[in-house]
């Protein structure tokens, strides 16, 4: 009953939270002294980045690990990993886009060779590579195995990228832009809105993940039907 309710409610509540974030972000909170209305991107961009980097990539990694562990190996894990990685790619792209939109007026360029940006981009390519690998393999078990291993490999990559890019950057550049932005968040309403945005986008993630997963199940169900047809047809091949 609770499960059913939560399933039914996830969508509407997510929409509600997103709408509330939008309203708080655009109407309730004041514009920034330095950046003006542009600063309102802070209610979108960091939350997107959080979902992209940690939540969805993490989900995909854990699901892949569970797939590889013999005792929990099942196609469910494979589907979860696949769905999460797809959602991750979407969020990474959105992070890049919102970041670039923000960067253009504040830094004067769409892109800078900054540690965080570079690692985000690399992660995006990793997610893309994961999907490409899935496409390149037809056989479901082979595909599941290979992509699970890739997800694990990508996961050890994440901290390495994180540290290497961090250290590499601190060696070459001084102050970062993010410490400056943090001072934006003193006002009460802004802090609350920021928090709300994280909640809303997290819910959006789960909503999308579930939708994607269901689509996958649906697809497999129809392919189950077509499988029965294929078997029929194959058997008839010999019967002339």
């Amino acid at each position, binding site marked *: 009953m609770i499960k059913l309710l939560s399933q039914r409610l996830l969508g509407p509540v997510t929409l509600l939270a997103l709408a509330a974030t939008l309203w708080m972000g655009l109407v309730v909170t004041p514009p920034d002294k330095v950046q003006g209305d542009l600063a309102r991107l802070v209610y979108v961009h960091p939350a997107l980045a959080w979902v992209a980097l940690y939540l969805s990539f993490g989900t995909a990694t854990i699901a892949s690990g569970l797939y590889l562990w013999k005792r929990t190996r099942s196609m469910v894990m494979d589907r979860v990993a696949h769905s999460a990685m797809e959602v991750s790619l979407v969020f990474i792209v959105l992070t890049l886009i919102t970041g670039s939109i923000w960067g253009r007026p504040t830094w004067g360029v769409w892109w800078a060779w900054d540690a965080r940006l570079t690692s985000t981009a690399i992660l995006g390519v990793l997610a893309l590579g994961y999907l490409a690998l899935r496409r390149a393999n037809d056989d479901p078990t082979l595909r599941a195995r290979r992509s699970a291993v890739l997800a694990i490999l990508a996961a050890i990559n994440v901290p*390495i990228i994180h540290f290497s890019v961090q250290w590499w950057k601190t060696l070459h550049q001084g102050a970062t832009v993010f410490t400056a932005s943090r001072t934006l968040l003193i006002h009460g309403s802004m802090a609350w809105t920021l928090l709300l945005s994280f909640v809303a986008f997290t819910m959006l993630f789960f909503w999308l993940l579930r939708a994607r997963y269901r689509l996958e199940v649906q697809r497999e169900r129809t392919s189950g039907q077509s499988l029965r047809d294929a078997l029929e047809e194959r058997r008839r091949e010999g019967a002339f």
Partner: protein
Amino acid sequence: MIRTALLVAGKDLRIELRSRVLLWQVVPFGVMALLLSGLALGPANAGHSSAGPGLFYLVVLLVALLMINRSQAVESTPGTRSSVATLGLDPAGVFLGKALALATELWLTGLVLLAGAVLFLHTALHGALVALPSIVVTLAALAAAGTLYGALTAGGGGAATLLPVLALPAFAPLLIAGERSFSAALGGGALWEWWVIIAVALAAYLAIGILLYGVLEES
């Protein structure tokens, strides 16, 4: 496991030795690529001795991609796959063996490229020697990662082109770490942070390979 590793490494190196690809093709390619990247950057940047480590690793990366492809191509003719599969070799051993063979090839090529960097890119000889240990370990990590990614993309039509897409992001941090510690060596210092990354990467790739190579081989 060790026995299998040595058997497989020996076989791979023998095939390489037979075809002389390393001597006649990969090494010249590396030197050529070193020269070309110098050209692409223009005389102003390339003459700078600071470009040395970056270009060195860029070229090592290209060479590594070529070699990984070869290392997998050897295994992946359809007939070979079936027959060798029925030998039931220990996958951890196969992984270690292929990685060892790849590392050996990379070390050899790396030496030549290092000489090239000293000659063409005005990299200081002393600094290059100081950087040698970090280079050896970085190349070993590259070999371990490369063997894994090679197996991931083996067989199938477009596999060979999928390899760089998947492997480049994995190699990027290694590239950075290697380059940084090389630069540090040139500057006379040593940066333990980069050593940490390289060592962690090597250990992680070896561990994953030993544990999961079997999963990849089955299919």
